[in-house]
């Protein structure tokens, strides 16, 4: 029974269906071009934009485990803080003067710890995973606190000096270098993550998230895949923390805190899980909200975060997703015009 439409043979049809999401849609290209242009469009906002980039990287790392593998973590900040302190200590004691190299090393340190702790999240229910991830973050925070002679303890890591990027571009006070740096790292991280989630490995993660039992029944070694993505996500979170430490030349204990873990969870939820852009969009919205609402009640910003979380859950996350469907449809229609093929709106 032939099911080809148009003039394409069935094989090409199926191949097209599978590969279409890997293609960069015009909306995506526009987004990144705008991001690039923002360097020149908003020269006075570079410090805030850097902050947004860092949150975006952090949320992207959480999306890898939450949106694509279904692991609920209440302690992802463990790796964020680890990356931050790694980069901070490397900078402070001059182990690796060049920041990009230091960044990579910090990310690797975070992923090694991620790998070691990944086995803890394989067992047990959602609640167990919640607790274990929470516990690991608490432990790392305690370690940073106790070894205060090295880490500065509650005062934070002082005296961090970051060398110029590639030996040439100094980190300036206005954050220009910092922003280009952060944006470049974000873009690179994003491109790699995008490739991974569109790969067979990425598809298997979605399968595991949807039905782990069936996944193992078709030959997928579920646990090893989860270990792999958890390690990657930890490394990504470490990169985000390292960029923060490098652009601010500072690291503090709150980077391990549950507040930070909860904030990144909120950011990802606002933007939506499972489509990679959720972390980026969420970071933009979060920072915007923070600016607006801090004006109202500077110190009690946490109240509004809580309220937004409660409101989002009560309204229903899929309902919010449905409100965004028109935007997704628009992207699809544009793609349709480009290639002259019927598309199916997918979220």
């Amino acid at each position, binding site marked *: 029974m032939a099911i080809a439409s148009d003039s394409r043979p069935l094989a090409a049809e199926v191949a097209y269906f599978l590969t279409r999401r890997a293609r960069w849609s015009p909306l995506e290209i526009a987004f990144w071009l705008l991001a690039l242009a923002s360097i020149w469009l908003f020269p006075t906002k570079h410090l805030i934009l850097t902050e947004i980039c860092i949150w975006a990287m952090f949320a992207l790392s959480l999306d890898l485990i*939450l949106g694509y593998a279904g692991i*609920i973590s*209440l302690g992802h900040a463990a790796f964020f803080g680890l990356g931050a302190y790694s980069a901070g200590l490397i900078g402070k004691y001059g182990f690796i003067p060049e920041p990009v190299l230091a960044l990579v090393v910090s990310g690797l340190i975070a992923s090694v710890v991620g790998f070691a702790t990944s086995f*803890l999240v394989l*067992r*047990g*229910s*959602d*609640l*167990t995973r*919640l*607790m*274990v991830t*929470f*516990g*690991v973050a*608490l*432990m790392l925070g*305690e*370690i940073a606190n*106790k070894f205060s002679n090295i880490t500065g303890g509650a005062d934070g890591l002082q005296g961090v000096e970051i060398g110029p990027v590639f030996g040439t571009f100094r980190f300036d006070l206005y954050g220009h270098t910092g922003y280009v740096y952060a944006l470049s790292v974000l873009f690179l991280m994003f491109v790699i993550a995008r490739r991974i989630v569109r790969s067979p490995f990425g598809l298997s993660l979605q399968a595991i998230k949807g039905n782990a039992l069936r996944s193992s029944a078709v030959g997928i070694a579920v646990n090893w895949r989860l270990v792999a993505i958890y390690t990657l996500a930890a490394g990504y979170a470490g990169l985000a923390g390292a960029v923060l430490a490098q652009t601010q030349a500072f690291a503090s204990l709150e980077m391990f805190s*549950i507040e930070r873990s*909860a904030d990144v*969870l*909120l950011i990802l*939820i606002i933007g939506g899980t499972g489509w990679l852009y959720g972390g980026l969009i969420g970071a933009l919205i979060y920072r915007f909200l923070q600016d607006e609402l801090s004006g109202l*009640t500077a*110190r*009690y*910003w*946490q*109240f509004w*975060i*809580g*309220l*937004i*979380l*409660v409101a*989002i*859950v*009560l309204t229903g*996350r899929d309902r919010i997703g449905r409100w965004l469907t028109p935007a997704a449809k628009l992207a699809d229609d544009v793609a349709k015009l480009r290639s002259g093929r019927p598309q199916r709106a997918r979220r």
Partner: protein
Amino acid sequence: MLTILFDGVAYGMLLFVLACGLSVTLGLMNFVNLAHGAFAMAGGYVTVVLVNRWGVPFGLGLPLAFLAGAALGAVFERTLYVHVYAKSHLDQVLFTIGLVFMSVATVDYVMGSSQQFVNIPAALQGQIDLGGVGIGRYRLMIIVLCGLLTVALQLILAKTRFGSRLRAAVDDQRVARGLGINVGAVFGLTFAFGSGLAALGGALGAEILGLDPIFPLKYLIYFLIVVTVGGTSSITGPFVASILLGVGDVAGKYYLPTLSAFVIYTIMIIMLLWRPQGLFSRATSR
């Protein structure tokens, strides 16, 4: 050494009173209520206001704290929580974390961020001498009071009709409903009662655990440990877990002061890996 044991038991019993509501909530509705500590905090602050500012006697302040917690629990349960039962665990986590943040910020705004103390009556201050060992009066009171509460809870669970309905609903919700048990009402009452107990624990614990706006977050991990190690299908499980945790924490702080926090977290992680369903619950999968 005996003092450590004594302090640890007092601490543990306090933790039990604080956490047992959470345990029943989880067992009954499979609902992860991370905001449980907020009700405890509410009880603590209510007592502070009543006893310190309005001169209500301590002995009266405690049951009033319980009632305040129960009322708060009942209201929140019927208006907010009930909409979230059917949602995914992630949604429950987000929801309750949101509530915690709101409560922490609200209390910070209303009462300020410094630690508060309850004016405990003179009769409970200081120590009494029992066979050459100095026993703190307040802690002794806690052990006695919480011990009585535990016995009362066990009796309610085992001997009353409500108790049997509750146990049935925890065991198998669908079957319980099929038998005509109004699971929604059972849950509402249990949630209110558990919140009341938490509030009572918060009031009692102000002296020992400290009371400030970040209380719900600070002690969240302890409540979770009690619930996961103790399991959710009995009273004895969380009770033993609380005592172990209390003694372990106090002993840890005394003998290994630099490492005490690690000891707790490491034990917790090991425990979770070895027996994910808890030390005491039957091996039912959730």
